């Protein structure tokens, strides 16, 4: 930007009526850099109308803006593109405002466009007022103060272990499942297999000419109670079924839950 003096020198003096007006124009021109874009400039121009922004004459405002741009051009001041775009838009708006409305025209009416521009200006002005009010509040470190010597808070760390009943059960289930599939002799300590029972029965059956209780066939050490007895009983019973199938013994049970008894099959009968 050239300094003010240079501008005066360059100035071809357009139709500035009064000295005051000239000075105002000059101020605007010199300050063009100080505006934050066309909207900011429009707001400044609007203020010269000295009316509520909501009742501002957008037509007058458009003319003011166009005059300003014209003047800047006359002063050979290069305006940024956005100022020129705004100028074009305002020129368009101005012509629409001056012409009778075209009922065929699509899109917003000139009045809507003007109203929106007035709204934008009012909103920007309102935000500036709000910003000023905000900055004038009792601010921390300016009029309100926090404790000057905040006390240090000691930090300690505690670990909380996450484990629920379901984790515990799952872990146990994992162990037990693994165990069930483990064919360890350890597990068989209390298991009497059917093969063992068959061997034993084959040896003993010859002596069982008369009906004999199943329990009498149980091997020594397996006939007391508990799992060993259960296992031996089951195995012996299964073996007896196998021997009956082979036709070597006969089985009898008088009543439900009565003792199961068997005897060697009399040799006279022939098997098919």
């Amino acid at each position, binding site marked *: 930007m050239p300094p003010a003096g240079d501008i005066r020198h360059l100035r071809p003096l357009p139709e500035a009526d009064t000295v005051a007006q000239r000075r105002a124009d000059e101020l605007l021109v010199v300050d063009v850099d100080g505006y*934050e*874009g*066309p*909207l*900011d400039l429009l707001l400044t121009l609007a203020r010269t109308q000295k009316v509520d922004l909501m009742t501002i004459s957008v037509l007058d405002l458009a003319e003011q803006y166009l005059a300003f741009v014209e003047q800047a051009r006359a002063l050979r001041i290069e305006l*940024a*593109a*956005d*100022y020129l*775009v*705004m100028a074009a*838009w305002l020129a368009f708006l101005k012509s629409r405002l001056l012409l009778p409305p075209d009922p065929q025209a699509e*899109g*917003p009416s000139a009045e*809507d*466009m003007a109203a*929106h*521009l007035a*709204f*934008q200006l*009012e*909103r*920007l002005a*309102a*935000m*500036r*007022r*709000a*910003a000023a*009010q*905000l*900055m004038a*509040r*009792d*601010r*921390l*470190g*300016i*009029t*309100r*103060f*926090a*404790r*000057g010597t*905040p*006390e240090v*808070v000691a930090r*300690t760390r*505690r670990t909380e272990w996450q484990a629920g009943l379901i984790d515990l059960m799952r872990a146990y289930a994992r162990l037990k499942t693994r165990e069930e599939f483990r064919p360890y002799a350890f597990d068989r300590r209390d298991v009497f297999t059917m093969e063992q029972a068959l061997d034993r029965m084959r040896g003993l059956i010859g002596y069982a000419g008369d009906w004999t209780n199943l329990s009498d066939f149980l091997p020594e050490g397996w006939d007391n109670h508990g799992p060993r007895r259960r296992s031996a009983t089951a195995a012996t019973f299964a073996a007896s079924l196998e021997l009956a199938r082979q036709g070597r013994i006969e089985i009898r049970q008088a009543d439900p839950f009565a003792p199961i008894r068997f005897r060697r099959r009399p040799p006279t009968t022939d098997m098919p």
Partner: protein
Amino acid sequence: MTQPDPRPDPSLPAMAEQERMVEAILFASARPLTVRDLADRLPQGCDPAEALAGLRRSYAGRGVVLERIGDGYAFRTAPDLSFLMQTETVEQRRLSRAAIETLAIIAYHQPVTRAEIEEIRGVAVSRGTLDQLIEMEWVRIGRRRMTPGRPATFVVTETFLDHFGLESARDLPGLAELRAAGLLEARPPAEGMILPLAPQEADDDIGATPPPGDFLKDD
């Protein structure tokens, strides 16, 4: 190792004692603490909200007052005594006019997108301005707007409320009047009404700026 103790009621501190405790904890802290923060530090079963109410009454009119800031509470010196505090006054970072206006727009219009800020100011918002406000912890990025492009929104923080002595964003000066005047409504510009944005600062990254026109507010 302090175990949280399941303190049975008879040994629960009396309310006067709970007030002492809350007073001590808040006094020690420079930052506001929430009821939750306090509950975490008090013995189990204490009622920080009630203790706060009692404390607030006993500090009313004193040289130090208990302020509510957003969800938090903090002791602050009474504003009317600021004339005594010249030596404490902290050098405030100079904020540009653009930064102050942007801050006000975010506070009053939050959550607000960058495009909306630009629409209101009529100029592009430089990255530096938003960065500065975020760095000062007055502004943070909020949720994305569920509109095309999913633009980020900006909101003000508790630090902002603390700095400006506001209990909540609803207490912003003039908010009701602005709302009544319809100046906080998102009003989409008429077609052909979108103003060109002037680049504001050299460091601007206009390229990354979403085009203006994102006016769909989800409130």
